[in-house]
């Protein structure tokens, strides 16, 4: 026996024979352990011992007068602990040994081969340590995952609250804008009816109020659209539409409201596509408004509708304005991005983003080109999508 003390080992020994217990202790000492042993002979004693303290290993005889190896293993499993459980017994037959291992015993040794005991304990301690480490790693992983999921759910809830608020706020803003615009336009009609010949001092002010009310309405619509885009609630109503006449009408509308003289439309009619009429009109008007806004020196604005290949439709809006600085070009379709920040012409930075999302929902693409001679050309390519087309319903709006 070695003079130096071995590794401390707390052993719960299920054994009725004190002679056999002594053999186990000796085998452990010889194998390099310094065992502290509690011997139990019944299930009650074993439960009490398990409750009392933490053990390193359970070593159990197979047959006892009032207890057994399999019953001890069941008691251990009831405690949901992962202690190494080693059976040490006389010959019990191969079937019983296999059954014990299947039930979860970690090893099975014969009493006359106790030299194997210490190495078996050492190996099982290591494996238990590995199992414990894996279990902790798994727990940690699950804890982190749960924390991440909780944070994500909280963030998503906050975004939903914000988007819901934007939708409610935009809707509430529309109510006063409706009566503001209608009252202003009624006043204009009443002035027209009076048809005074002298220059009308009120007319100009009323036009400013009317135009600003329209502008408010557009900004509010953009806010609504962007929150719909964010929450995935922007749904398309697809119908068969002639894009040539849609673009021509939209350009005429922008020309009337801006007074811009040099607008040219090239559109071979008809160019049929399956699109959301109002949404594509919104994209065209947005691109036209941008072209006007960022052409302070005037110049021609060209709009082209063409069919580059069967099934595809190309809409291009070309201006000769101030263009977009190279360092801003990459992000022009981002939400809230303003290519010309601090410029009084810039809006909420939502127009191009919403246009991009509308075109993407149609399965198309939008891109900006910067011709060497200056200005900007926005190009929208849409799939005609006629397979899914149904004739447009007659709706008055």
């Amino acid at each position: 026996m070695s003079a130096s003390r071995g590794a401390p080992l707390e052993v719960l020994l299920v054994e009725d024979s004190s002679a056999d217990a002594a053999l186990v202790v000796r085998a452990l000492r010889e194998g390099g352990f310094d065992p502290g042993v509690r011997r139990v002979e019944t299930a009650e004693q074993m439960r009490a011992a398990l409750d009392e303290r933490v053990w390193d290993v359970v070593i159990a005889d197979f047959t006892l007068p009032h207890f057994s190896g399999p019953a001890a293993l069941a008691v251990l499993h009831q405690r949901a602990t992962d202690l190494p459980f080693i059976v040490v017994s006389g010959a019990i037959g191969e079937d019983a040994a296999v059954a014990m291992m299947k039930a979860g015993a970690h090893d099975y040794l014969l009493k006359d081969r106790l030299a194997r005991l210490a190495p078996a304990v050492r190996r099982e301690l290591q494996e238990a340590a590995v199992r414990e480490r894996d279990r902790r790693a798994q727990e940690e992983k699950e804890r982190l995952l749960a924390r991440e999921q909780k944070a994500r759910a909280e963030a998503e809830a906050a975004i939903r609250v914000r988007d819901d608020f934007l939708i409610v706020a935009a809707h509430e803003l529309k109510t006063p804008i409706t009566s503001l615009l209608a009252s202003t336009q009624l006043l204009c009609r009443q002035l027209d009816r009076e048809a005074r010949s002298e220059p009308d001092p009120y007319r100009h002010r009323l036009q400013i109020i009317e135009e600003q009310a329209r502008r408010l309405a557009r900004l509010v619509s953009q806010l609504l659209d962007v929150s719909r885009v964010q929450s995935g609630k922007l749904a398309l109503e697809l119908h068969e539409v002639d894009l040539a006449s849609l673009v021509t009408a939209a350009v005429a509308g922008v020309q009337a409201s801006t007074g811009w003289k040099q607008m040219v439309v090239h559109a071979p009619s008809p160019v049929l596509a399956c699109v959301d009429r109002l949404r594509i009109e919104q994209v065209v008007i947005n691109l036209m408004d941008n072209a006007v806004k960022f052409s302070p020196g005037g110049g021609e604005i060209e709009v082209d509708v063409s069919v580059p290949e069967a099934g595809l439709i190309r809409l291009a809006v070309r201006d000769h304005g101030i263009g977009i600085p190279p360092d801003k070009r990459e992000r022009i379709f981002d939400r809230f991005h303003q290519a010309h920040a601090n410029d009084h012409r810039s809006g909420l930075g939502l127009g191009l983003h919403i246009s991009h999302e509308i075109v993407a929902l149609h399965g198309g693409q939008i891109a900006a080109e910067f011709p060497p001679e200056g200005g900007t050309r926005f190009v929208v390519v849409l799939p005609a999508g006629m397979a899914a087309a149904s004739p447009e319903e007659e709706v008055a709006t």
Partner: protein
Amino acid sequence: VTPAGPILVVEDDQAILSSIADTLAFEGYAVVTADHGATALDVVKRQPIALILLDMKMPVMDGWAFARAYQSEPIRHAPIVVLTAARDAARWAAEIEATAYLAKPFELDALLALVGRYAMSARD
């Protein structure tokens, strides 16, 4: 052109109600107003109506409930034009089988074009 009765404007927002009513009166139409569906229902039971301009979200009785009650009344039914600030205007109009819809805020010209079209078709 004389429609078969006044135009009924059903709208809970007083500012919108008065600007629509004043515009219609200025353009020579007879107008009656109601600030929600229940008062509108009293109006349609009392007299023939040429056209109904109907807000959808209202207190007491909303546009859906009004349309249901109105259509079950044993009277001649005027066309309904839905006026709403919601993007679901088209769907809501379809739900109550309205003749047309107009999204708020609207251009007065667009409102008058609709009124001209449907108030006349309701004449006989």
